[in-house]
């Protein structure tokens, strides 16, 4: 093969390889400066000019809302925000964090895939003397210094499910219940499952859990799991989804069975979720969903950024900041709607 032919055969592979590399790279945005300009070091001790924000994914409205809020807050404060999305790849996220550190960021905010694999990333930040915040997903117990800003999944879910159970009680008969769980390697999914179980335990004989379906945060698995559960137990009367983004699956299955009814209609299946996204708001407003646990995405983002600012200013920062959240229900929808981030997003659409 001639040199030219060899070069021609290698060229497409090289171009595609480069393209794939570019897809995995992080990109800067922020205070109106060009993304191509590499940020410099902090101009003076305590001042924050650049932070790195590494999200595990942007797969739900919740993550998009959080990402947009951080971006807006950084822009408002004149901070350059370096962005990276790892698409669920923890090794890639570690590289992205190391990349941030090499570029001299003043702080790092991470949404990790899970609580274990993030610990080396925290330690890398500790070694570089850069404050690090875990957004929405805390780390497993570790001596590595960091702050976790996260919802109290157990408490919020328990409050939500307790409300659902109170509705089940009002029906006057023992209701069969099921839960669509998330990814079992995700601390948030585990917290929500534990909150569900705690509420069920306190419910006594008001409900009986007949199905627990792991969905890996996948709508199609939720759909198939729900169909199968209803096949085995056609009289399931209470469904809890560990994330609101599974509501379309619930709507699809219940609609096909003629059981997608409003809360004040006969034959209504009690439905609850977690997150407080725009779909949940709409379904609550329309009367199909009874309750959902709301985490305050905007408050969490503000806290995460404030921790970086405080840490750089030499102030003491806590190891954990809890988002207490709340359960929004048919009973308090009007009152709490302004605090529900999904309502804000829905009204912007």
């Amino acid at each position, binding site marked *: 093969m001639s040199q030219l032919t060899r070069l021609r055969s290698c060229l497409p592979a090289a171009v595609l390889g480069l393209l794939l590399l570019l897809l995995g790279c992080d990109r800067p945005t922020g205070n109106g400066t060009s993304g191509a300009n590499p940020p410099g070091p902090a101009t003076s001790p305590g001042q924050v000019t650049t932070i790195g924000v590494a999200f595990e994914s942007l797969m*739900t409205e919740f993550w998009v809302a959080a990402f947009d809020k951080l971006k807006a807050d950084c822009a408002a404060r004149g901070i350059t925000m370096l962005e990276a999305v790892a698409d669920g790849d923890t090794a890639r996220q570690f590289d992205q964090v190391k990349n941030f550190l090499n570029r001299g960021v003043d702080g790092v905010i991470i949404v990790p895939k899970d609580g274990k694999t993030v610990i080396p990333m925290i330690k890398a930040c500790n070694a570089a003397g850069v404050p690090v915040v875990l957004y929405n997903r805390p780390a497993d117990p570790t001596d590595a210094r960091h702050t976790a800003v996260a919802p109290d999944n157990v408490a919020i879910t328990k409050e939500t499910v307790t409300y659902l159970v109170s509705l089940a009680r009002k029906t006057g008969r023992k209701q069969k219940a099921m839960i669509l769980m998330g990814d079992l390697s995700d601390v948030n999914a585990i917290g929500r499952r534990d909150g569900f179980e705690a509420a069920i335990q306190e419910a006594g004989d008001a409900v009986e859990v007949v199905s627990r379906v792991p969905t890996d945060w996948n709508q199609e698995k939720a759909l*198939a799991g729900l169909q199968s*559960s209803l096949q*085995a137990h056609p009289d399931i009367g209470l469904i809890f989804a560990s994330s609101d983004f599974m509501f*379309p699956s619930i709507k699809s299955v219940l609609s096909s069975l003629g059981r997608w009814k409003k809360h004040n209609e006969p034959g209504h299946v009690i439905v609850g979720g977690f997150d407080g996204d725009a779909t949940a708001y709409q379904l609550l407003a329309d009367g199909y969903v009874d309750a959902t646990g709301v985490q305050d995405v905007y408050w969490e983002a503000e806290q995460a950024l404030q921790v970086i600012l405080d840490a750089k200013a030499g102030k003491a920062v806590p190891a954990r900041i809890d988002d207490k959240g709340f359960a929004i229900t048919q009973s308090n929808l009007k009152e709490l709607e302004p605090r529900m981030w999904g309502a804000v997003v829905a009204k912007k659409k």
Partner: protein
Amino acid sequence: MSARPRHWIQSLLDSAPAALFAVVLIVFGLWSDRFLTVANLTQILNQSAATAIVATGMTFVLLTAGVDLSVGAVMFVGAGLAGKMALAGQPLALCLCVMAGVGLLIGALNALLITRLKLVAFIATLATLYIGRGTGRWITQTRAINLPDAFLALGSARWLGVPLPLWIAGLVILSAHLVLSNTPFGRQIYALGNNPEAARKAGLRTHQLLAAVYVICGFCAGLGGILALAQLGAVSPKFGELYEFDAITAAVLGGTSLFGGRGRVFPGTVLGAVLLKSIFNGLVIVQADPYLYPLITSGIVFLAVLLDSARQWIRAGS
């Protein structure tokens, strides 16, 4: 090893998918009286429809010793576009045509990369997987799209008492089966997969054949996307994710070789797709420990690859 025992082992390995399917039905059937009901079995078939169609397309590719990792991304891009169009008030039929068209287009792109630019199929389709996922996210802005009820009506429609997805899947599977087993084109695909060099020397247009299988695979992914979307009624950023692995697993479980030249859409690939869904359905119905699901699923994938390797090893020995 002498010829006779080798023949027996070969037959045993070839019938392993059917045996495994029978075991799954018997075990779950004995465990729960709700598993082996007509309603539940119909539901399993209905749930398998989209996977079976995508796996049918994948079978064409695997028969040539290739692979297409982009099928899930094809589904996502098509669904994202169709979702946006539906929300903009475009007619349902046009949205569905666009989904199938996206499949043809990405299939053609894969064909171009593989046959003209000589990229290895794994790399080429991995690239289109990333490009497709990125494009889908850009189209949807990673926001959920809740579709008009007409989509859900399509997914739950019945004709002569049989769910519409089953009719569509049946039509695709029957066509693919007839093409592979009764046409010169089908025989040429097997010949290409068995020995590409011999096929080329025999005068087969190997480039055109290869291009055709990737276009067929893309089209099937588009059709599978339509069924999945009609059953779900919403597009999420994870739509179609990991479908490529389900499709490959279904095909290989059904006896299609990763090394090319061997396999059948019916009953092979269809059996594999139904087996995958039966296991998930069975685990839900018997209320299995949620932590067992990934163990069992990965065990099935391992078994599929092991069976294929064993078949290949026996064949090489003979």
